[in-house]
């Protein structure tokens, strides 16, 4: 949807003819900035002297200033140097009859955004003002995104602090119970507390490991070591790592795969398999099954699908599951340890490989988590495919 932006423009020129001319041209000028879906309307205010302009600046903030270099009292260059160069929220366009390359360089260095030589045609004025307005709006958009980014970071850190503090509280509580010998002098009776403490510490270790994976991904710093990864072998390795936990709960594995390989960083593929397979075991029912299916897609991608026979998800859960720190907590799942970062990491990885993630699920029957990946493009001495950041 196109929105209308009103920008306040101050015109500072001692020649009445110029002031009136500029106002007349800009009054009917409503440029549409198609890229941003914006139409700009200008509110115009003219000043005969630098002093009058500076007085108005105390109470109002224009988005754009059309500033004449040569003014009777305080000059345009002085205003630019002493006042406007310090105002990052105002875009200055210099208007001058003394258009030399030297003036242009000098004013630009002092912070002017652009330069308009007198005499100018209406089109030249419109062109310059349009450019200035675009700059204003882009800068506002950038500031808005920056604020949003800070808020997201704030939320992330708040939740992270909570997630790190909970296991410490739990362990501290158990230690306190032991120190107070609440269950009597027999050491054996405290073993369940020791086991629970170890489990919480393990969960914390996993959270820290996931956090490091996430940081590494987001930094975009690490160069991918691309090689041909045999997916069947990678899947088997991941299944073996959870075999013990699965055996305890009588969960069986099936691996359906052609002999598929993909050009990728083996570490990335390992993270994806580990997250999907360990979730499929953790959130399964006792005696259930986990099926890993590896297939090629028509578009030359590979598809990894991991199906469990667990609790399944509601539509609402499915929507938000791949976001950071989202864990579906119900009476059935709240004992299951997890960092809440695993799926968001898989999603970020998939994006790096030009792919996507998703889940299909029937509540109460089980879920299939899938990811599609395109082969990484191997480029020597440059960032690999997808890691452009």
């Amino acid at each position: 949807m196109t929105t209308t932006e009103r920008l306040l423009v101050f015109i500072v020129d001692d020649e009445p003819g110029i002031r009136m001319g500029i106002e007349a041209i800009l009054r009917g000028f409503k440029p549409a900035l198609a890229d941003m879906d914006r139409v700009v309307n200008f509110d115009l205010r003219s000043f005969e002297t630098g002093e009058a302009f500076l007085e108005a600046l105390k109470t109002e903030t224009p988005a754009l200033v059309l500033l004449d270099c040569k003014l009777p009292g305080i000059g345009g260059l002085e205003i630019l140097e002493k006042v406007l160069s310090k105002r990052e929220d105002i875009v200055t366009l210099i208007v001058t009859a003394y258009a030399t390359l030297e003036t242009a360089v000098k004013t630009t260095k002092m912070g002017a955004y652009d330069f308009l030589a007198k005499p100018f045609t209406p089109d030249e004025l419109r062109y310059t003002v349009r450019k200035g307005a675009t700059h204003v709006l882009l800068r506002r958009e950038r500031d808005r995104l920056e604020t949003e980014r800070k808020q997201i970071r704030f939320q992330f850190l708040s939740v992270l602090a909570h997630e790190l503090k909970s296991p410490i509280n739990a362990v501290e509580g158990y230690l306190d119970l032991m120190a107070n010998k609440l269950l009597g002098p027999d050491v054996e009776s405290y073993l369940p507390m020791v086991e629970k403490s170890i489990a919480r510490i393990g969960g914390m270790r996993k959270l820290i490991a996931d956090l490091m994976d996430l940081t590494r991904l987001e930094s975009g710093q690490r160069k991918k070591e691309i090689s041909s990864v045999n997916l069947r072998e990678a899947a088997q390795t991941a299944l073996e790592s959870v075999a013990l936990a699965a055996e305890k709960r009588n969960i069986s594995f099936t691996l359906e795969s052609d002999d598929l390989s993909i050009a990728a960083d083996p570490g990335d593929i390992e993270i994806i398999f580990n997250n999907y397979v360990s979730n499929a075991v953790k959130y399964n029912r006792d005696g259930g099954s986990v099926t890993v299916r590896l297939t090629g897609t028509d578009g030359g991608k590979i598809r990894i699908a991991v199906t469990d026979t667990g609790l399944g998800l509601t539509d609402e859960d499915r929507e938000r599951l791949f976001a950071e720190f989202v864990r579906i907590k119900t009476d059935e799942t709240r004992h299951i340890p997890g960092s809440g970062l695993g799926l968001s990491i898989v999603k970020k990885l998939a994006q790096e490989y030009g792919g996507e993630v998703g889940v299909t699920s029937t509540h109460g029957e089980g879920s299939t988590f899938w990811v599609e990946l395109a082969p990484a493009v191997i480029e020597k001495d440059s960032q690999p495919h997808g890691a452009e950041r």
Partner: protein
Amino acid sequence: MAKILCVDDDHDVTEFCKIALEAKGHEVFTAADGDAGFEAALKVRPDVMLLDVMMKDVSDGFQTAYRIRKEESIKYTPILMLTSVNQVFNHKFSPDRDGKFLPVDDFVEKPIPVATLIEKVDKLLALTPDQINVG
């Protein structure tokens, strides 16, 4: 022996309270969120209720406290809120200040020292209905 209901979504917190209070001879019931806690309170009629703040959402515990105070049969249940000091806003709850706005009887900050938990529960058990902060 008294009946204590502990409501917290962190299994280790309910486990901790269970061990500590059972060792003192109390009967301990647990629930994992505000709704389950409210239902359990109706059924169990606890003598004291321990209630976490942040469960299903950031104020699940407070909302549950308000519900308890509106329900005639369990209205006068002494409530001890289990809080985490908010690192960001650094707000420490106190009965004198926050009790004016929240219908609860005391606060205890996590990690909860065993001795403090037992002491606070004993204090709440000694309250008479007219001393309960029903808001």
